[in-house]
């Protein structure tokens, strides 16, 4: 059922697909995080913008990925840009929502204590609020990353796709081995990235580990 010799002969192709998949995913998550962070800060400044911004991100999240990529092609072509615009747009709702939830979950006394100690606005954000919001933000990062690993596959239709490309070629050639390799590696990739994010969270929030012990 599985042609192991094909796998042995094509480790370079398979490895290349994994790297492509990883690059597409990380690029989308990093840019999505920056945009979501700005959006969350804007919402905290101007409460009235919360509705419109989350509604926009919500609609983007609802549009099926294949349709979103298809819609972008006349504007940005069969390019990496098209793939990334689509992928980033799916991270925005999850990340913005969790950044906001994390910041809003901080007790008012903590903020007042920071103000009382003479922290300026940016100092309070970077030194007090962000560290405390980190667990909720990291949960959002994990959900977004697993989602994006799956959606990257769909970009195979516009010539990207990493492991999705491998699976689609396997389908077109009626060659199941390529399909199974793509499937297994995608799930492994999602799990590994999830574990890495958990490890990063533990490194960044040593106090929560101490509290749990």
């Amino acid at each position: 059922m599985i042609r192991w010799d094909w796998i042995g002969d094509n480790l370079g192709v398979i490895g290349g697909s994994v790297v492509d998949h990883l690059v597409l995913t990380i690029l989308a998550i990093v840019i999505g995080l920056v945009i979501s962070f700005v959006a969350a800060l804007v919402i905290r400044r101007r409460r009235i913008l919360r509705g419109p911004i989350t509604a926009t991100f919500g609609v983007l999240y609802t549009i099926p990925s294949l349709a979103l990529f298809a819609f972008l092609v006349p504007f940005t072509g069969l390019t990496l840009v098209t793939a990334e615009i689509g992928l980033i747009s799916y991270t925005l709702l999850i990340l913005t929502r969790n950044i906001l939830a994390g910041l809003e979950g901080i007790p008012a006394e903590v903020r007042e204590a920071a103000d009382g100690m003479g922290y300026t606005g940016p100092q309070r954000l970077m030194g007090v609020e962000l560290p405390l919001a980190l667990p909720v933000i990291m949960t959002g990062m994990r959900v977004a990353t697993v989602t994006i690993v799956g959606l990257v596959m769909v970009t195979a239709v516009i010539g990207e796709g990493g492991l999705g490309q491998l699976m689609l070629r396997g389908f077109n050639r009626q060659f199941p081995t390529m399909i199974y390799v793509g499937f297994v590696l995608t799930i492994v990739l999602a799990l590994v990235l999830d574990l890495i994010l958990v490890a990063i969270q533990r490194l960044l929030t040593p106090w929560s580990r101490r509290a749990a012990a």
Partner: protein
Amino acid sequence: MDGITGALGWLTDPAHWQGPNGIPTRLVEHVELSALAIVVALAIAIPVAFYTGHTGRGGALAINVAGLGRAIPSYALLIVLFPLLGFGLITPLVALVLLSIPPILANTHVGLRGVDREVVEAARAMGMRESQVLTRVELPAALPVMMAGIRTASVAAVATATLAALIAGGGLGRFIVDGFALQDQAMLVSGAILVAVLAVVTERGFTFAERRLVSPGIRLAAGAEGAETAPTELARPEPVA
């Protein structure tokens, strides 16, 4: 803007509104596949979740199944089932059912478990049978969370039914996949618009149904704690540590 005007021309061409490759036929195929998958998924997930949610037994299993479902991408599932199940309706249907079960199962379970234990005890003390406790007390209270799960599953089913065109299936995804293959941008963008509209209509429709079905008293209580974050919050993976 070329793509948009081209699509408008394509969408308003009467020739595209008839025949086996017309918009109505493809729309019906799309809705049929998605709806069938949701009905099958409901028939499987709801009894299981009623049991785990009402008794509290096997809850970890329900949550883990849901977590697993999140980790498997729809595109990957659809294509990996193909060598096993072949062409035809069965491959996309099985994929859609497998993807629809987790959100319905998890949200129904979590919704039922979230019902105030004192309310459940009061219902028992009033002499309700277990089946009455479930259908008259727990179910109405769990309905907002449960409906959110069904909505999530339905929107995902519409999205995945689009991908079915990649493995020679029907539905509105056909216009997108054929549009790519024929390099016909008007057809491509038209397909994208149709699919997007169907997804948004599905989402809005279920949100509307939720408002109508959920009892006003419960809606009020749910609104107070910010129901907006509920669906994704529930579906998020459990921290490993």
